[in-house]
């Protein structure tokens, strides 16, 4: 027999779909089928059921082999590492819940660590731009109910956020958008002819690395001023046409992704994109939203901000919070050799950081807390597998539009496995004792 768990939240991408249904065995131990999710989300749930899953912490030995140890021993090792280190780096946080993040911040405060999340290599540039110029944005339901102009700039939701277009941005019929996609105009800006671009009314195939120029040209075109014949590979007629489409809408939004945040220009691209949005508000209503990747990277930024004051790249080594991306951000800290211990949770720098940084991680005392086997767990001295958050543990998470949604526990974790938060509490308690804090 099976039971169906409804209103399940998908712990994969920033779209944070919350309408999944999961069929589980009656004893609540095994997932049988996942409904409503995209292929990636489905795989995330089913992957947790793998029979060869690692269920106990493993400590790397001198010869490179692993020795299974208990959670107690793992917590002791982690606490010792944090206590001894002068400047440990605690990186990740984006694939765990806000309660675990909170607990991690307590540890960071005790150990005077650097705390950083995956925004450092993703939408950190967006945050810098927001600190420069602000951010007119909205919730995704506003897009569903009102938007008739949609721009995807440097992002490809068809593959990266598969249900975004059907749930929020292009196809849904909302309150003022009863005709669904028929009364929405879609503009896609991407140097590649992606599957998202194929659906566009206008695809602007911008020359790679020239997004800033094109955004700037948009601001000129909105004002009806003179443009050269071609900007960033786009003929001016097409720019004027696209600008008119945006201006003539009732409610529009720009979604943007890593194509603009991490290409040439970085935060300056986003500065300009936000300026375009502000300018458009002189004619109609316009918003802009980053397409956040991990399902709870937004939450990590929120928790860090309300506890320390900054959304990422926080350095607590002086006993109070400092923030200076480029100096206190993970890649810079690692590549300069500034940190003497590496603590990774809920992300995979081993797969995404430059090779010299990954090499540094492998040389440092290091702990990786992750349910999966990843390149990071492979280079870390200690791998602590934990329950899958959002599948085997609940907890608060934030969608890309900052809306908090409480993840659900669907099935029990394998016997004896701890959640992120439970393990971090063990580490904190030990660290408090070592530091002599009541």
């Amino acid at each position, binding site marked *: 027999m099976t039971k169906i768990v409804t209103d399940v939240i998908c712990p994969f991408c920033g779209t944070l779909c919350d309408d999944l249904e999961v069929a589980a065995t009656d004893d609540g131990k095994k997932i049988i089928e996942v409904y409503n999710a995209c292929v990636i989300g489905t795989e995330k749930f089913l992957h947790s059921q793998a029979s060869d899953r690692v269920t106990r912490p493993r400590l790397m030995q001198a010869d490179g082999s692993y020795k299974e140890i208990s959670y107690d021993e793992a917590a002791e090792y982690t606490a010792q590492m944090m206590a001894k280190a002068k400047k440990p780096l605690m990186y990740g946080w984006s694939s765990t819940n806000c309660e675990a993040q*909170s607990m991690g911040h307590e540890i960071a405060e005790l150990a005077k660590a650097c705390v950083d999340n995956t925004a450092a290599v993703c939408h950190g540039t967006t945050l810098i731009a927001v600190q420069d110029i602000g*951010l007119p944005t909205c919730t995704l339901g506003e897009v569903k109910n*009102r938007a008739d102009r949609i721009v995807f700039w440097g992002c490809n939701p068809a593959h990266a956020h598969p249900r975004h277009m059907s749930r929020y941005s292009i196809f849904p019929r909302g309150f003022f958008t009863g005709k669904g996609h028929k009364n929405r105009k879609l503009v896609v800006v991407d140097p590649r002819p992606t599957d998202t671009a194929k659906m566009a009314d206008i695809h602007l195939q911008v020359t790679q690395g020239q997004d800033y120029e094109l955004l700037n040209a948009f601001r000129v075109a909105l004002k009806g001023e003179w443009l050269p014949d071609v900007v960033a590979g786009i003929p001016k007629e097409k720019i004027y046409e696209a600008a008119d489409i945006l201006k003539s809408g009732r409610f529009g939004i720009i979604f943007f992704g890593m194509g603009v945040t991490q290409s040439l220009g970085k935060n300056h691209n986003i500065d300009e994109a936000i300026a375009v949005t502000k300018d458009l508000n002189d004619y109609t209503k316009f918003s802009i939203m980053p397409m956040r990747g991990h399902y709870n990277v937004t939450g990590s930024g929120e928790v860090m901000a*309300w506890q320390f*004051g900054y959304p990422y790249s926080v350095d607590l080594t002086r006993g109070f919070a400092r923030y200076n991306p480029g100096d206190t951000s993970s890649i810079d800290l690692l590549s300069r050799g500034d940190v003497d211990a590496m603590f990774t949770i809920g992300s995979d720098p081993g797969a995404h950081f430059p090779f010299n940084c990954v090499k540094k991680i492998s040389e440092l005392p290091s702990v990786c807390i992750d349910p999966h086997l990843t390149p990071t767990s492979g280079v870390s001295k200690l791998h602590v597998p934990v329950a899958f958050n959002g599948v085997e543990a609940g907890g608060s998470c934030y969608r890309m539009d900052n809306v908090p949604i*409480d993840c659900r526990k669907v099935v029990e974790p394998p016997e004896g496995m701890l959640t992120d938060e439970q393990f971090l509490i063990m580490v904190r308690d030990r660290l408090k004792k070592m530091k002599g804090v009541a």
Partner: protein
Amino acid sequence: MSEYVIKNGHVFDPVQGIKGDKAEVAIKDGKIVEKAGSGAKVIDAKGMTVMAGAVEIHAHIAGPKVNLGRIYRPEDKLFTCTPTKGMERMGSGNSIPSTFKTGYEYAKMGYTTCMEAAMPPMFSRHVHEEIRDTPIIDEGAFPVFGNNWFVMEYLKNHEVENTAAYIAWMLRATKGYAVKVVNPGGTEAWAWGLNCLTVNDPVPYFDITPAEIVKGLIEANEYLGLPHSMHIHPNNLGNPGCYETTLDTLKLAEGMKANNKFGRESVMHLTHTQFHSYGGTNWGDFESKAKEVTDYVNKNRNITIDTGNVTLDETTTMTADGPFEHHLTGLNHLKWANVDVELETAAGVVPYIYSPNISVCAIQWAIGLEIPLMMKDPMRCYITTDHPNAGPFTRYPRVFKWLMSTKAREEQINAFKHKDKVLTQTSIGSLDREISLYELAQMTRAGPAKSLGLGNMCGGLKPGMDADVAIYNFNPEKPVANPDDIEKAFTRCAFTFKSGVEVVRNGEIVSTGHKRTLWVNAKIKDNPQVVRDINEKFLKYYSMTQANYESLGHHFVPNPFAIEVDAT
């Protein structure tokens, strides 16, 4: 729990009518009692002022827009970060302090109960996570209703009962405390880039006016008998000449009577009145209309107000009045953040510098002080800075100084670049009233507690009430040599007790207490229509499911205190 007896202090308690007499205050099991046992710890408050813990009726201290302010203003942290210290976690921020710092600062100033003034219902879980991380102080949060689709659809047909049923559902789902209204109708219009500037401007599509929304919400509020009245930020905030809209809004409460079991007499609370008391037609002939507004409020006993004092600081404005923040960024060209929230509300954030060298800012400062000085009944006028909009809450002691000392006011007026303009456009120069400590206790304790329906629980020192006590190093028998002494004394308590726990000693945190989240659980008759409407809206228009909407569970509200209301 420990017992305490506070001896020899000068007690100011409007609830019992004690005006500075030396009286004993005894604490046992978290409550004020007639007499403590012989083993009680004695606190010698000789030469000190003893009051109940202060009650904050309106501040933006938790939630999405506050945190957006923190995220997008790293500059607000400059020189404000504090290290871990004893019990205290790290802190940061001036106008938008981190949650921990917020709790500590309030407690150190003797505040023990605070209300978060605008909670976007869809973000209630975020608000509660921040409240959870704000130590010591009891907190409640007001969900916003003034631009809610359900409310507008029901009130278009004057369906008060359905509106009330919806409010009851919403308070339960969001663990909310009261009915907040911000720019009624105007914020919905802002979703199309428009606004409602008078109480009669129709809301686009919904075909209802702000006046109908306000009246209907007052009626629904009294139908339920909620502890607090409808709490309003009217239309047309911050514009020259806006006082007329304010008076139009206040008139909507005429003839309405409070209905509740909590001792509340008001039906409307007008918040940050300073921002709504402007005359003139432009920034050049900008002038105070504090007299017109306070004259009206003085005459109508069913209205309470708070001040919204400008403190002449660099700060961060944030409000659910989305169109206003867009207007403001057009004025000062500082960075603009905006969030529109589906079916419910919106919010905007813009930094602002209230410079003493700008005539408008100086006039705003004067208006904020005129209002409490012109109000005849201190039990109906409460001191706020609409934190952080007119200034950070940490400046309350400075506002007290200005109110309690004409000398301090004169010093400030003389320091203004456009002193003459301040004197011609306002009547601050001719007001010689000085607020007494008793009146201060009314304006910061007994008054707001009564308006919030908490008059039997906090804001006073009567036996049976919660043992929230603030002891200030301020001797009321000695003449004030220097007005700055007032500010200094009220900045750091000698002692603060929260629910009978000593949380502050000599201005330092000694316990993080047992913080509670206050919310209102209103029971109503079954209303299948409203249940069906809610289901339908979630199925069709919300971007999340109804089952995931509620703030449920220990990680959101670890220590709830529900105030029960029965409207069946």
